[in-house]
């Protein structure tokens, strides 16, 4: 069937003027067979396996973006949660392994490798403990290694001992990277209900149910959605949802096509499409601005959650129609430092940490790329994680926390992370302590699945 000129023009406009891109092509690689009683063997086989599988990822993806004229912004790798192959390794060895991962990522030319992770939502094994101990130094001494820890699920409840520990991990990481605006924390996520096939960083890992290797794709396109809405300034909210749905459909189809071509050429099975609307600091590539276009003076004001719920749902509906294999986090991301509209909202004081928390009830993930004042205590950070995990646990959805306590900075200052990570105004935390609750430890029991009001 021939393509109409209007359709050609629409695609070109989306790419050239509205920042349509494929945000990430992420290769998941299982490292289960790299486990060994001899740690030197572990290091060599991890390095070799990653380089063998992902060696062609970058050149192939770059080739495909040229042929199709749609940029693939990031090429990344997700691996088996490292705690699962650590065995009896020591903390120092676990840090060495992070360096090996960093080198492998550098060799194959990917910007991030995710999966320096542990799943401890119910309890911690010895190797999980080792990984948690190693995390601050591992995050500080590497450039490309991302870590994540699952601390709760709807079926298990929340492991508050692990939550308390993560407060310390985040604070230590911030201290170790304080010369660099505590950037190490930007590579770490705490999860409730994590997904096993998320292609987005910093929370990507290759889950236990996944195969040997897989290629998953994360699309993007807040700019495309924003511009589509601008063409319907007087539409009612039903029509707004419809516009978002149709746009998400087109974006997803483009993403799936390119993802499948990449996976074909690499001879690795195609995994899933993640439909997340992921903003960048490019002009007009902001999720906050979509909410404002729907009719809010500034993101964070009354009505924000309703608008976000509408948008998130419409994106999923359009995307689910476009691809048979939807997975990952699929929804809207609301990172602060990577979204010009969110940054403005905080500067104008229309958006607060409390409102961001509330927003995470209806969007895809959680508190993301939020810079808080450097004097936030480990217990306060842990309590922020606990709150967010509770939202995820009760609502049966993924929630995550990626906060950066920027050592030496206070509320109201601006911190520049640079590159894709953007910049963020420092948000203050409440001056009242949560110490006692965190120190109690133990597990928050799994919630009832009936009596759901």
């Amino acid at each position, binding site marked *: 069937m*021939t393509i109409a*000129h209007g*359709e*050609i023009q629409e*695609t070109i406009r989306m790419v*050239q003027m509205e920042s349509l891109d494929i945000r990430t092509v992420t290769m998941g690689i299982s490292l289960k067979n790299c486990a060994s009683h001899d740690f030197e063997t572990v290091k060599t086989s991890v390095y070799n396996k990653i380089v063998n599988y992902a060696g062609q990822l970058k050149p192939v993806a770059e080739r495909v973006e040229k042929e199709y*004229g749609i940029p693939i912004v990031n090429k990344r790798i997700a691996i088996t949660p490292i705690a699962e192959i650590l065995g009896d390794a020591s903390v120092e060895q676990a840090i060495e392994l992070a360096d090996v991962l960093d080198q492998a990522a550098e060799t194959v030319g990917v910007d991030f490798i995710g999966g320096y992770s542990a799943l401890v939502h119910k309890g911690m094994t010895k190797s999980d403990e080792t990984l948690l101990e190693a995390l601050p130094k591992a995050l500080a001494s590497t450039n490309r290694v991302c870590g994540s820890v699952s601390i709760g699920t709807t079926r298990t409840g929340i492991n508050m001992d692990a939550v308390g520990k993560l407060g310390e991990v985040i604070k230590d990481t911030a201290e170790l990277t304080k010369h660099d605006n505590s950037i190490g924390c930007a590579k770490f996520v705490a999860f409730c209900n994590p997904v096993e096939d998320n292609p987005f960083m910093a929370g990507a890992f290759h889950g236990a149910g996944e195969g040997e290797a897989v290629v998953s794709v994360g699309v993007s396109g807040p700019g495309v959605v924003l511009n589509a809405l601008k063409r319907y300034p007087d539409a009612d909210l039903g029509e707004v949802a419809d516009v978002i749905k149709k746009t998400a459909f*087109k974006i997803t*189809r483009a993403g799936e*096509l390119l993802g499948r071509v990449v996976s074909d050429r690499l001879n690795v099975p195609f995994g899933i499409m993640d439909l997340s609307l992921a903003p960048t600091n490019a002009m007009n590539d902001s999720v906050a601005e979509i909410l404002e276009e729907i009719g809010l003076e500034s993101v964070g004001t009354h009505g924000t959650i309703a608008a976000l719920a509408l948008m998130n749902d419409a994106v999923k509906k359009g995307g689910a129609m476009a691809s048979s294999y939807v997975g990952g986090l699929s929804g809207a991301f609301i990172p602060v430092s990577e979204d010009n509209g969110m940054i403005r909202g905080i500067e104008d004081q229309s958006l607060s940490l409390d409102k961001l928390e509330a927003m995470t009830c209806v969007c895809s993930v959680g508190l993301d790329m939020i810079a808080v004042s450097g004097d936030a205590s480990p217990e306060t950070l842990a309590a922020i994680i606990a709150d967010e995990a509770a939202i995820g646990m009760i609502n049966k959805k993924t929630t995550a926390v990626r906060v950066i306590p920027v050592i030496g900075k206070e509320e109201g200052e601006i911190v520049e992370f640079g590159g894709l990570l953007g910049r963020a105004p420092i948000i203050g935390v409440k001056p009242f302590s949560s110490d006692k609750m965190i120190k109690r430890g133990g597990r928050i029991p799994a919630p009832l699945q009936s009596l759901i009001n």
Partner: protein
Amino acid sequence: MKKRAVVTVVGKDQVGIIARVTNVLADYKMNIHDISQTILQDYFTMMMIVDTAEEDQIDALLKTFETIETEMNLTISIQLEDVFQAMHRI
């Protein structure tokens, strides 16, 4: 079957745009299946459906287009046809 691509050229109208672009296509032995061109408020817009270049020549082709883009102040893009099919057809 050989894959087809869509070439679009947009820019301020001037003498010789079609000549320059189609000459390049001929150099790379790329057959043109369909061509359409309009001028909208002084802006030249052309779309062509063409055969794709040989795999190993894509980089050279893109470079040549880049040169024309700077010399004539145009925007030229070439994309495989599949992506339009995927985005606009169920």
